[in-house]
């Protein structure tokens, strides 16, 4: 079947050129991508553009880079890949961005329209495959739709609750002449963005707060996205209410502030979880009562009043029934709420919180080899909340969340909802492109790192001064921890025997490699890496093989079953999900 050929006069542009013009109009600086047959017209159009193309080594890496760029800057990250396997390799990244509300645009090449549905070479029904993991998606059948779709995609990605948007463009569409003009307007009658919350519900929240003796502000990523961090601190100080934040809410409230008890949840600080157990009011500020936070839903804060501020109405009463729901942007809602509240008599409550802080501090063994916690504790001393930290998922992630305290928004980038291994290093690359002056540390495990390690080449070729800290215990450590605690230590599929020498691996890419074996060397070697700006620097911390993350409450258990340290008795298998 022949592609319809249309003669173009010199002033006309192709769909691909129009697409790239659209990206330029949206202020795109970088496109993270990997080329392929169906996307060649778009890659060709990029040659004449000021947009810089970052060639990755695997499409999953591109999606995490775009995600890291987006979360570090608040601007949408853009991915460009080809059809078929190129497109399906973005699915994990789409899920990651979707679960964590990151604005990412994924543009996929597609086979020519006459061949759609006929098993053409490198054809995949990409819109079909990705429906559940995108905020919205487009299959472009008419070249004249390109200007409108590009505008809509960017508008949708960043507004309301952000998320990924996919644009699938058949090759004959990107090659065809396009004369449709750009417009700034979007016409989406099915899409509603909320701003200020209703005065009535905000007043009801203020009334509940006024009657509370033991309030707790529960800060999620919504506070980061809406830029509510200052309002959160103002509210906490005005009320004299303690704060806890979620894994993704790190940066939504200053973790070094005396009112902030740090991260709550399955591996949160014991004092944050004690406050959760004993509060008489909990107010979610852009947090969605995730199962890592609630544990057993039936026993979650049974006697506490619950207030929920969210930009996404579908989060209300999804997991936890609340007393007051405020639909609105977290910052705007807090700004309206602050004048309505007065200082509460929380002296006794704050005294108890600080007692818990003293009685159950974060701690770790000093013997038995180099401890990951010590490495991250020292890294925190060096970065002091000023660096951008990215992570993978697992033990290193939880230790980093506990020990590396976040003070400002957009300095903590982790895969929370999806729990994607291999996220951290490419996300750091994206973050460094977005914020070239920042110190960016990727904190990764030896397992996750190897899933996207090919992107070392991407970091090396651009001489990005990212620092990659591999917490190497030669295990898939979090799973090993579960097997030890809940499965009679029957280890299955967790021993990463065969790991490479990571320093030699770095050298093979022309990257500086540093190995840490002894506790005494940690600070000096981390400082050396931190100061190195000539290119990437990979630091391998050879840590104790068998160490566990505490505190911990088994999945699906109530907070009262929290283990502050290694249990003396055998544990039952968890009832909750993973």
């Amino acid at each position, binding site marked *: 079947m022949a592609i319809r050929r249309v003669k173009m006069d010199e002033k006309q542009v192709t769909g691909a050129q129009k697409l790239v013009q659209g990206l330029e109009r949206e202020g795109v600086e970088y496109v993270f991508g990997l080329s392929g047959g169906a996307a060649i017209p778009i890659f060709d159009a990029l040659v004449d553009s000021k947009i810089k193309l970052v060639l990755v080594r695997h499409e999953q890496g591109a999606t995490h880079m775009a995600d890291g760029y987006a979360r570090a800057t608040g601007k949408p990250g853009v991915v460009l890949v080809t059809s078929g396997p190129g497109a399906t390799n973005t699915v994990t990244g789409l899920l990651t961005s979707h679960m964590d509300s990151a604005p990412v645009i994924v543009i996929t090449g597609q086979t020519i329209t006459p061949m759609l549905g006929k098993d053409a070479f490198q054809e995949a029904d990409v819109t079909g495959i990705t429906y559940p993991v995108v905020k919205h998606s487009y*299959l472009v059948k008419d070249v004249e739709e390109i200007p409108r779709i590009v505008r809509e995609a960017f508008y949708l990605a960043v507004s309301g609750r952000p998320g990924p948007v996919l644009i699938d463009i058949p090759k004959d569409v990107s090659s065809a002449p396009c004369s449709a003009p750009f417009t700034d307007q979007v016409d989406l009658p*099915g*899409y509603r963005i909320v701003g200020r919350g209703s005065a009535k519900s905000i007043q009801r929240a203020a009334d509940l707060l006024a009657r509370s003796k033991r309030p707790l502000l529960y800060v999620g990523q919504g506070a980061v996205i809406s830029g509510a961090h200052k309002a959160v601190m103002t509210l906490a100080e005005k009320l004299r209410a303690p704060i806890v934040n979620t894994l993704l809410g790190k940066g939504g409230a200053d973790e070094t502030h005396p009112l902030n008890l740090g991260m709550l949840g399955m591996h949160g600080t014991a004092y944050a979880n004690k406050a959760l157990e004993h509060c008489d009011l909990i107010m979610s500020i852009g947090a969605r009562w995730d199962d890592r936070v609630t544990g057993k839903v039936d026993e979650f804060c049974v006697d506490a009043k619950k207030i929920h501020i969210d930009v*996404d*109405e*579908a989060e209300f*009463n999804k997991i936890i029934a609340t007393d007051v729901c405020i639909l609105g942007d977290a910052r705007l809602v807090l700004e309206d709420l602050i004048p309505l509240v007065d200082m509460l008599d929380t002296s006794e409550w704050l005294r108890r919180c600080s007692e818990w802080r003293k009685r159950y501090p974060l701690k770790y063994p000093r013997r038995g080899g180099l401890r990951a916690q010590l490495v991250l504790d020292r890294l925190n001393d060096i970065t002091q909340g000023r660096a951008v930290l990215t992570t993978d998922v697992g033990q290193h992630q939880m230790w980093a969340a506990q020990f590396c305290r976040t003070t400002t928004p957009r300095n903590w980038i982790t895969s929370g909802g999806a729990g994607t291994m291999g996220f951290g290093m490419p996300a750091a690359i994206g973050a460094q492109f977005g914020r070239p002056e920042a110190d960016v540390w990727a904190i990764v495990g030896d397992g996750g790192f190897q899933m996207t390690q090919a992107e070392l080449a991407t970091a090396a070729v651009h001489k990005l001064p990212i620092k990659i800290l591999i917490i190497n215990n030669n295990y898939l450590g979090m799973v090993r921890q579960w097997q030890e605690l809940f499965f009679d230590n029957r280890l299955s599929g967790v021993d990463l025997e065969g790991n490479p020498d990571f320093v030699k691996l770095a050298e093979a890419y022309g990257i500086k490699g540093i190995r840490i074996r002894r506790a005494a060397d940690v600070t000096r070697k981390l400082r050396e890496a931190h100061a190195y700006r000539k290119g990437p620097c990979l630091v391998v911390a050879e840590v104790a093989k068998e160490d566990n993350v505490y505190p911990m409450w088994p999945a699906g258990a109530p907070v009262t079953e929290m283990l502050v340290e290694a249990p003396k008795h055998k544990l039952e298998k968890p009832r909750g999900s993973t």
Partner: protein
Amino acid sequence: MAAPELISEPTPKPIHTISLFVHNKPGVLVRVALVFARRGYNLESLVVSPAAEGQFSRMTITCTGDPQTLEQIIRQLHKLIDVVRAVDHTGDAAYQSEIALVKVACGLNDRTPVLQIAEHYNAKVVDYGPESLMLRIFGSSEKLDAFIELVRPYGLRELVRSGKILMARGLRET
């Protein structure tokens, strides 16, 4: 045209009726169906038709499942960019209607009771063959249920129902 009281047993799970006003675009139906499927809801019937405004469509969906999940489903449907409106009409005083075609395999000598039932329910014979009858009936879904159960013993061979359609009364939006 008064239908007799419902004869069949009430269904154990409540049947919900949801009306959607959506963009008429490819893929909308899949997006909508995924919201239900992921949350364990079973679609009983689905009617898609053009709306008065050409670029939009109507979907009328009846489904069964846990009522607590329904609130979440409606909100997730609302979140779809292509869904302009999602309304749960369960329990509303909306006008509802459905049409059914019923084929009864009964010979010329056995069809008197079937024709009596049909007359009572105002069902029209649309195909009169030597070995079978085709009847067309419209009305509320409950009326159709009752009619079908009455003719079933006489040799119900095939049944095709349109699925429920519904419109809010007065000037309220569907």
